[in-house]
């Protein structure tokens, strides 16, 4: 298992395998084939999605299963709900999670509520692939992180992978799941490489992973923030502080057991979340842990999030916008001051 591939390739493989295993899986989205409908391309895609994630799939599965849509997010996302309710297993792509405002009703009021409203008689097996995140100089309307908004909706699951291995396994799980699963990719991680087995495997939705064990402080990270957490862990290790790093992977429903278990051991928690700071996954975790692990906490739970602003365009401002190790360390300082001094004592 030494093959290293990019996140992009891992996602592409998952789609390929899912389509091979189940004819009911179809893809819909804007330019996910890309030009496959142009005569001289003869059904071959020109693009495979704006980021190339669906490359090669239209050539293999045809335009009936890799469906380019007009720019009609409400239309095709709602069509995915309708197709799912009637027996297919659609995997629509929302090109950027920032476009959610164009198809929000199909998620908020239709897809997520159908099963409940219909007394359990509807099943909506559908995976919405999308991406989030700042860092690509894509500015305010193409860089937001809205998995927290989606995660607040009952009936929806939301997955945010941090690495190629989990991305592939989680996407396969998502597509097999009988619920609407939002699979939100960080667009700045597409080029990230990691070890990924060939063929089919799944990673369980709803389970966080302890990436590194520690005893003094737990850091829970979402998606790309894992790498910030790891840098922080490295830097604190130098000061004798042992950090447990947890990669959340599923933000709704998030893995309370793993997180609380860790905090009961370390007695301290920082959550890193690139969302805007209010009513997000980080504050949800903070509130639940502050409650359920109240007697175990030696310091307040801290959230390190993006500021309460849209994403700025200028490179220097965008860098400031994204949570980074320095910001986390500054917060950490407050809650582990005594620990850091330990080595000095």
């Amino acid at each position, binding site marked *: 298992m030494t093959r290293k591939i990019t996140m992009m390739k891992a996602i592409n493989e998952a789609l390929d395998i899912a389509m091979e295993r189940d004819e009911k899986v179809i893809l819909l989205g804007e330019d996910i084939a890309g030009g496959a409908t142009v005569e001289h391309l003869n059904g071959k895609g020109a693009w495979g999605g704006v980021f190339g994630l669906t490359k090669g799939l239209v050539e293999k599965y045809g335009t009936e299963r890799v469906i380019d849509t007009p720019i009609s997010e*409400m239309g095709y996302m709602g069509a995915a709900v309708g197709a799912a309710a009637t027996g297919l297993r659609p995997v629509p792509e929302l090109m950027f999670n920032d476009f959610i405002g164009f198809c929000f009703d199909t998620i908020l009021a239709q897809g997520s509520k159908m099963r409940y409203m219909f*007394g359990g*008689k509807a099943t909506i097996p559908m995976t919405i692939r999308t991406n989030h995140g700042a860092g690509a100089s894509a500015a305010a309307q193409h860089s937001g992180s809205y998995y927290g908004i989606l995660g607040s909706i009952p009936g929806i699951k939301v997955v945010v992978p941090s690495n190629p291995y989990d991305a592939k396994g989680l996407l396969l799980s998502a597509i097999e799941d009988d619920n609407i699963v939002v699979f939100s990719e960080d667009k700045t991680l597409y080029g990230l490489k990691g070890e990924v087995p060939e063929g089919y495997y799944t990673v369980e939705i709803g389970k966080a992973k302890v990436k590194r064990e520690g005893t003094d402080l737990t850091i829970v990270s979402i998606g790309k923030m894992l790498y910030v957490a790891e840098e922080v862990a490295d830097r604190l290790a130098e000061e004798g502080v042992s950090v447990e790093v947890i990669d959340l992977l599923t933000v709704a429903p998030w893995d309370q057991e793993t997180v609380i278990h860790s905090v009961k051991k370390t007695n301290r928690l920082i959550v890193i979340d690139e969302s805007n700071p209010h009513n997000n996954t980080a504050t949800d975790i903070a509130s639940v842990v502050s409650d359920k692990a109240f007697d175990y906490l030696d310091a307040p739970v801290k959230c390190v999030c993006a500021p309460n602003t849209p994403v700025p365009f200028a490179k220097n401002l965008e860098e400031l916008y994204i949570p980074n190790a320095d910001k986390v360390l500054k917060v950490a300082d407050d809650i582990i001051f005594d620990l850091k001094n330990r080595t000095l004592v």
Partner: protein
Amino acid sequence: MEKKDALWIYEKMNDIRLFEDKVHEIFSSGEIPGFVHLYAGEEAVATGVCAHLNDNDYITSTHRGHGHCIAKGCDLNGMMAEIFGKETGLCKGKGGSMHIADIDKGMLGANGMVGGGFPLAVGAGLRNKYLKTDNVVVCFFGDGAANEGTFHEGLNLASIWKLPVIFVCENNMFGEATPQAYASASKTIAERSVAYNMPGVRVDGKNVLEVYEEAGNAIERARNGEGPTLIECVTYRNYGHFEGDEQKYKAKDGTEKELADKDCITIFRKQAIELNLMTENEADEIEKASVERIQAAIQFAKESPLPRPEALYEDVYA
């Protein structure tokens, strides 16, 4: 139209009318909670269209969905119990009037969101085409819904993908208190079909024979893979927009009076008898049987228990 279709239509028309008249009555007594939008007056549309459908065909519906449900074969007892919010309802009492559904019958749900049905219908149509079935989807919607963006996206998608979807507009002149003549830039809804390169027809929605014929043509084309159609049915509702509406916006003269005076059930009874599709006797029998069925449904609903408390937490995730 064959005799059996005529009898079926007359039966369903009566079921719908009686169902709605009774719900109207009971609602004013306070026994039915929530928002209820009655279909009475528009029976010719749902029945004329659904007469061509089987259980494997789908429909999407609206907030004014009881008529579509009945015409698509939903169980009357289950429907009434649902509207009462009882455990025996089609949705276990969790949906209510605006969300009655029965996917097994191809009924993809009444819909509280105006314009919510277009994308769902496109999806079901995509499914039918992808699985190479000859099944169709009928998307019922109101004149008001035709101004939502989903109308545009839905018709465009159905057309470019040549999906077996029939878009049936129930133009009852109003979206709530707002007249279609004000809200729509186009004079008719049917003429919008040009923008989607699909056939568009406008029919007298009080005349079930007309509805039946045009729907039949469209559905046949759809089954043959010839794509979608837009059918506008001009109709009028007997009651207010929802229960409690004073209806001051309705005009007492002109087109509106004409429409109000036309009763689609009376008209069809006469037509069907004249065309030897139904005898007086059969008509009387059907009417009587409807009364009994609806009475039974009401009794069923009233006697049914409320949902178990735990039901609150069930059916969120599969």
